[in-house]
């Protein structure tokens, strides 16, 4: 981690408080590796204050998470701008998800403003937070919690009250930081600055287009791999069953076929369905995955890859759509437009269906081996 930080730091900027590390605004290929979870745990940035270009006391302050990809996106888009970057400690999680969990939140931002002594480094009281951080950051609370008032005259006000709202004292030496919610995407920062720090509806709206979906696929594929291996193991064991007891050759032959079929349905649910997401004319993700899983089963049936036994074919027509349905259902977390209430609703309907299909499918698979 230290070494990673050293690579991106290219100098220092002097301030009245201390020297602030200056980071490069040109990137290398780290972003490719992180999407495949290669060494993802090491992709943390030390929280604190950084500089791009040569900022001074009047320069803008941009807030981000300490997930390296978030940080890199920001500094790349600050190329040519003299600015401060305030990195919050989100345990290496991106802005939006960390905001949902509360780590990219009001208290961490207030804490980070205080420990970096930001109020002494800049002379303005404006701080730009990416809009998706609003899930965790309450702008009005940041302002009152960073406000500073002089010590009360003894007897006029109770000491404890000073922590509630500094404004009640009347005399305020620092009005606190005003949070401005900036654009969702860092690439809009320059347009946002030109627009006099106002976001347009377009800058504020989250999309989920083709390239957004593709970027998320790799993470999901790698993440769910253990479930896939567990399914392989079960199918090898069940394939060993035959009317005479246990048949190892059959276990290997049918187990390998099962492995290929399961892998195909896994990728149908996790890769093909998300890619064609808007073109499957139902709303529930589990239903979308179920439909594409049936399509897959149909194709494999026509090519003869589901075997010849009636029970076996029926088993695969239940198992493959169920797996695909389950995997697509889990893609709700990666999507950017599903609500918690909606996901709960579709799980109430489709989880029982998936369980029924898998259990019936496995029983039919065993019956097929015994007949």
């Amino acid at each position: 981690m230290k070494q990673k930080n050293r690579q991106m730091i290219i100098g220092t900027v002097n301030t009245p408080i201390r020297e602030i590390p200056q980071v490069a605004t040109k990137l290398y290929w780290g972003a490719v590796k992180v999407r495949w979870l290669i060494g993802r745990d090491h992709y943390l940035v030390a929280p604190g204050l950084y500089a791009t270009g040569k900022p001074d006391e009047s320069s803008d302050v941009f807030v981000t998470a300490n997930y390296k990809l978030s940080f890199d996106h920001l500094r790349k888009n600050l190329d040519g701008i003299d600015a401060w970057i305030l990195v919050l400690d989100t345990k290496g999680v991106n802005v939006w998800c960390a905001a949902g969990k509360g780590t990219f939140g009001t208290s961490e931002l207030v804490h980070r403003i205080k420990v970096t002594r930001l109020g002494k480094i800049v002379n303005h009281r404006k701080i730009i937070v990416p809009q998706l951080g609003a899930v965790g950051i309450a702008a009005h609370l940041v302002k009152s919690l960073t406000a500073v008032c002089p010590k009360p005259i003894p007897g006029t006000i109770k000491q404890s009250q000073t922590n509630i709202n500094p404004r009640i004292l009347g005399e305020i030496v620092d009005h606190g930081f005003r949070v401005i919610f900036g654009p969702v995407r860092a690439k809009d920062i320059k347009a946002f600055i030109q627009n006099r720090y106002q976001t347009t509806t377009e800058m504020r709206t989250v999309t989920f287009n083709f390239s957004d979906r593709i970027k998320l696929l790799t993470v999901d594929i790698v993440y769910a791999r253990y479930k896939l291996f567990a399914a392989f193991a079960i199918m090898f064991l069940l394939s060993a069953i035959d009317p005479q007891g246990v048949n190892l050759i059959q276990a290997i032959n049918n187990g390998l076929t099962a492995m290929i079929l399961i892998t195909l349905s896994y990728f149908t649910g996790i890769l093909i369905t998300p890619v064609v997401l808007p073109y499957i004319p139902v709303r529930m993700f589990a239903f979308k995955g179920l439909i594409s899983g049936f399509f897959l089963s149909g194709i494999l049936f026509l090519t003869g890859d589901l075997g010849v036994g009636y029970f076996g074919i029926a088993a695969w027509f239940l198992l493959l759509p169920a797996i695909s349905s389950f995997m697509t259902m889990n893609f709700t977390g990666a999507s950017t437009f599903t609500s918690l209430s909606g996901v709960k609703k579709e799980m109430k309907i489709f989880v029982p269906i998936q369980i029924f299909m898998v259990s019936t499918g496995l029983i039919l698979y065993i019956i097929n081996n015994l007949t």
Partner: protein
Amino acid sequence: MKTMVYIKDVVTLKLNQDKCNGCGMCVKVCPHAVFNIEMGKAEIVKQDYCMECGACALNCRQAAITVLSGLGCGCATGIIENYFAGNRKDCGCSSC
């Protein structure tokens, strides 16, 4: 490209217009342009586009907005992990 819409009529987002002072913060923080300011009051114009992230409710100093937001995203993996691991704060999902 048109925004994708999820399941209709399930969203828990509610706005109390009597409390609203028309500051427009909800419009500024909403990632799906659910709100609009009309005649000095906020109104919900696209209820079904809401993903229950909770940004509007958190940033409404008038407490005029309520929404059941959970972890800020609708995530089946998170719901499953919470079901088995009890009420953990973290969804444990590495895609977020």
